[in-house]
């Protein structure tokens, strides 16, 4: 089971780029890396997924180094509305187990 480790919390000022790193040393060959965002009083929602190198969408970018033992979620120019908990999840299409982890609580400061 590929467990993940993330910082418990981070603070950032509005307008800055925020990078949240997730460690997954036991990642398996077929595992993908997925990030979820959870606002207060809501369930998590999917934001981005990748296997290697870099993935970008309208919300975020995901950087995955060649060894895939870690990944970095990058949020460009954060605003107050990006204050949330961000979860890194590792899992594959065939495996039976996946692990959400404890998440990183991001607070954006005006």
């Amino acid at each position: 089971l590929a467990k993940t480790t993330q910082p418990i919390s981070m603070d950032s000022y509005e307008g800055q780029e925020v990078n949240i790193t997730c460690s997954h040393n036991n990642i398996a060959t077929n595992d993908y890396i997925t990030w979820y965002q959870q606002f207060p009083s809501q369930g998590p929602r999917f934001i981005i997924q990748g296997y290697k190198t870099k993935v970008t969408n309208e919300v975020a970018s995901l950087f995955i180094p060649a060894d895939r033992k870690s990944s970095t979620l990058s949020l460009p120019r954060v605003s107050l509305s990006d204050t949330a908990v961000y979860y890194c999840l590792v899992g594959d299409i065939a495996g039976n187990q996946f692990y959400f982890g404890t998440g990183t609580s991001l607070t954006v400061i005006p």
Partner: protein
Amino acid sequence: DVKVTQSSRYLVKRTGEKVFLECVQDMDHENMFWYRQDPGLGLRLIYFSYDVKMKEKGDIPEGYSVSREKKERFSLILESASTNQTSMYLCASSTGPKGYYEQYFGPGTRLTVT
């Protein structure tokens, strides 16, 4: 727009009561999940179901059971509620049973057992 609904946002029950948490999805997903979320522990999987009447244990199934009689509905049952089951419970559904597939979450039920 995809939707996962949970029967209650807040619930207060007494120790020893039997508690039912209901979850309904309208996306025709085969896979449904129940998690609990506690401060400092993140999301932990209790049970999941990959088809009607099928279920599998997650990481923390003790003290819980589930029921899936219809594709759209997945119920979490606390046979005899205890104070250590006070938590936020989140239901999710997905097109696939594994971590690779996007999961759609409901808003959660905050259960307090007194």
